[in-house]
């Protein structure tokens, strides 16, 4: 962490005196000073869903994962107990967060992607309906990283999600009947879909998985009423395929040019180039732009594809109506270590150099934390948040990373201690933002890898990969860490080291709490300001999903988290104490209270005519 070079405020105008004083004070006093700037970091919480509900994975367009509920707070979180639980019976990794709309909770299980609606108005949240889509089992063997589903969406009265075998389905939220089902790709060729759809207006945005299978990546928009595909933007190929037109204005010159999605690849290799859009999408309703990242280039052996390999490991800003690209920035051009660019971008407005900039904060797989101007694509801050040794910094003018030549893998030669590993300093597990503290919160990794590349053939339906890896912890011996990050200074405010990987999403609440879970199954609540762990609960299996919170029909606040290890957490499965698989959703409340239990009133068998009115148990209904 120390001695790692990044840059801060690359193109900042001159700073005002007040900002300089505040920045200096912040450098002197680590723990408290950022509060002076906290009020300066803000986010737009559109679409401003009802505070007790949770309609999309990230709760809002800006991807803050912040809940305004404060009934559960730093004062009483020690009394948090399990209120009820729900098992979906599937043992693949559980990566999504439940949605709550009104008095119904919606969850989708990993393959075979059965959807459940749970009736929160009844004790024990019984199943209201199920929808079993019967996807093709071929998909199980084509999914690189477990047969997961990373989330689902609710909009327009429909539960909308992706099946592993490349279909997007919309299910009537009331009845559980299928409304539409659209085939988006061919699973037998190695393409799958795992990401949660993201709804903007009447458009459902979905993307594919398959950067390890030689599938060219894409993001598509479907009409929410009919499921018809409206546009599809690819991550490599001609400008027409990538939807780069006259509106495209990247900030840096090295991203300007014709058909860069073709010219930065050897002949025809862009067709199997990867760049899958399997991660998170955010949206700025004022600028009318969506932001999302693309995966690693394919194959994962860089010597087979000399060139900058656009537009993989990049972030795009697009117009959701047409898909036209507005700007892009490539995080890791000619990526050699599988550093996908798909991690979430949280949209925040923050002061840089005395001005408030509309920015986004993105913790990339390549271990750099970026603050990027979301209007223009200018990189304002790029500094490591985890240990890395693949680069020695950035060219401050072009914002291109400077690769250390000795960290470039050559085929058949073992390269030791490459940090971060392929799964990055942080993988897709999403971070959260609290407007009260102005900080971002994320579970990150402290891992390195030894890698040997093997040149690979492209055989459709099989991996186009080639990286043989073993992973081990970086200096410090802890595999995980949960941190809070100050996006203005580009520094951690506090960090909690965890022995096991921290691969859960983060949840921030107005009760000054942040929730996260570990891969060995501990679900924790932390003081958002100080990082003190206030409460922990061990669950049945490791936690790789995202927590959420809602108000039940009884007016109580609940916190829900799935437990079921899998996905990329399996890279540490050789650790002693690594948990077995699981399939259970846990819902917590203060003292575990919820709707009274559903036990029927017992009848007696001896003598008396009927139930004694005096035995009416108060509180039981």
């Amino acid at each position: 962490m120390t001695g790692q070079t990044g840059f801060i405020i690359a193109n900042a105008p001159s700073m005002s005196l007040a900002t300089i004083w505040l920045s200096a004070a912040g450098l002197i006093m680590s723990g408290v000073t950022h509060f002076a700037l906290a009020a300066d970091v803000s986010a737009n919480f559109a679409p401003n869903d009802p505070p007790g509900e949770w309609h999309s994975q990230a709760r809002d367009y800006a991807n803050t994962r912040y809940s305004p509920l404060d009934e559960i707070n730093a004062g009483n979180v020690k009394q948090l107990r399990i209120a009820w639980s729900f098992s979906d019976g599937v043992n693949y990794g559980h990566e999504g967060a439940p949605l709550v709309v009104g008095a119904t909770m919606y969850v989708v299980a990993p393959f075979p992607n059965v959807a459940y609606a749970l009736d929160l108005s009844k004790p024990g949240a019984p199943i209201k309906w199920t929808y079993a889509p019967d996807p093709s089992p071929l998909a199980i063997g084509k999914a690189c990283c477990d047969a997961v589903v990373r989330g689902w969406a609710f909009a327009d009265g429909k539960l909308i999600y992706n099946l592993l075998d490349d279909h997007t389905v919309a299910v009537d939220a009331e009845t559980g009947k299928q409304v539409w089902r659209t085939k988006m790709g061919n699973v037998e060729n190695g393409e799958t879909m795992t990401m949660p759809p993201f709804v903007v207006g009447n458009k459902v945005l979905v993307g594919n998985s398959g950067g390890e299978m030689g599938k060219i990546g894409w993001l598509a928009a479907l009409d929410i009423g009919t499921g018809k595909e409206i546009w599809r933007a690819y991550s490599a190929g001609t400008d027409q395929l990538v939807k780069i037109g006259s509106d495209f204005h990247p900030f840096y010159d090295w991203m300007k040019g014709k058909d860069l999605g073709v010219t930065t690849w050897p002949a025809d290799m862009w067709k199997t180039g990867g760049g899958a859009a399997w991660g998170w999408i955010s949206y700025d309703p004022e600028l009318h732009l969506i932001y999302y990242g693309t995966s690693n280039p394919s194959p994962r052996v860089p010597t087979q594809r000399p060139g900058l390999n656009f537009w993989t490991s990049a972030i795009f800003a697009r117009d959701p109506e047409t898909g036209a690209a507005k700007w892009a920035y490539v995080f890791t051009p000619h990526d050699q270590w599988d550093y996908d660019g798909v991690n979430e971008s949280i949209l925040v407005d923050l002061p840089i150099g005395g001005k408030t900039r509309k920015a986004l904060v993105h913790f990339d797989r390549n271990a750099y934390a970026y603050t990027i101007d979301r209007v223009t694509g200018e990189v304002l801050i790029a500094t490591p948040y985890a240990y890395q040794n693949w680069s020695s910094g950035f060219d401050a003018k072009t914002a291109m990373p400077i690769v250390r030549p000795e960290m470039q893998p050559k085929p058949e030669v073992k390269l030791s201690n490459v940090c971060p590993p392929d799964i990055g300093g942080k993988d897709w597990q999403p971070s959260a933002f609290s407007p009260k503290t102005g900080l971002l919160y994320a579970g990150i990794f402290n891992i390195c890898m030894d890698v040997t590349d093997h040149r690979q053939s492209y055989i459709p339906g099989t991996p186009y990969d080639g990286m043989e890896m073993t992973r081990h912890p970086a200096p410090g011996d802890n595999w995980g860490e949960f941190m809070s990050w100050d996006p203005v200074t580009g520094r951690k405010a506090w960090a909690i080291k965890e022995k096991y990987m921290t691969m859960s999403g983060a949840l921030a609440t107005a009760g000054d709490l942040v929730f996260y879970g570990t891969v060995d199954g501990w679900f924790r609540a932390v003081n958002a300001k100080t990082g003190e762990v206030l409460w922990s609960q061990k669950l049945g299996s490791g936690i790789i999903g995202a927590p959420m919170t809602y108000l039940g029909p009884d007016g109580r606040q609940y916190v829900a988290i799935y437990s079921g290890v899998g996905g990329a957490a399996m890279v540490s499965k050789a650790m002693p104490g690594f948990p077995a698989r699981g399939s259970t959703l846990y819902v917590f409340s203060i003292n575990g209270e919820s709707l009274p239990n559903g036990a029927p009133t017992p009848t007696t068998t001896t003598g008396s005519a009927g139930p004694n009115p005096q035995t009416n148990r108060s509180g039981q209904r």
Partner: protein
Amino acid sequence: MATRATGRSMVSALRAVSIIAAALLASYEPVAGDSTAAAPTSGLPPEAVLASLPLAELAGAVRDPAGLVVANPFEGDKQAIEDGHRLFIAMNCAGCHGYDAAGNMGPNLTDKAWRYGGTPSAIYQSIFQGRPQGMPSWGRALPAQDIWKLVSFIGSLGGSYRTGQHQDWLNGDHGVTSTAPEVTTLEPTFNVPTLREADKPPDTPLAGGSPTPAPGGTP
């Protein structure tokens, strides 16, 4: 100037050299890496025998072991194991099953759990035909020789069963469902303890209360 003596010694030297050269040529063996050397083309089982076996015969209760006793023609051939390892990486098997074959996207090939059978001919069939949860079919892409070499390599990893020992495999099968992922370590057989006579509960039902659990363990 060549004298007679010199001439004679030259001739014997030439003779010696030619003998040594002949010996060297005779001892020449194919270099490592020959993919098709020593292939017993006549010993390969006809593909029709294996291809005609219905899947159920391999995956379920076996009445007729015909086909399952087909041996790997490269049995005991170390070169075939090396070639199979090379093919395992070249054909992207390692990408799904892991470079150590211990499983990743595809199942672990080093343990005793075989969804579709772990004898050499069963493994051959799985590679040849492909399988429902994403295993591609290689029968048209690879010649029989190469598939048997892959079987040799997988057999060298310790998890597979011997030719004809399908009963061993059935004993270890624990009914993995079609949707559960593979378990990475397995006991080869279950140890079902048997109750001793003295520990068995009496035949008459106990009056009132719950029955006393028998000591000595329940499975």
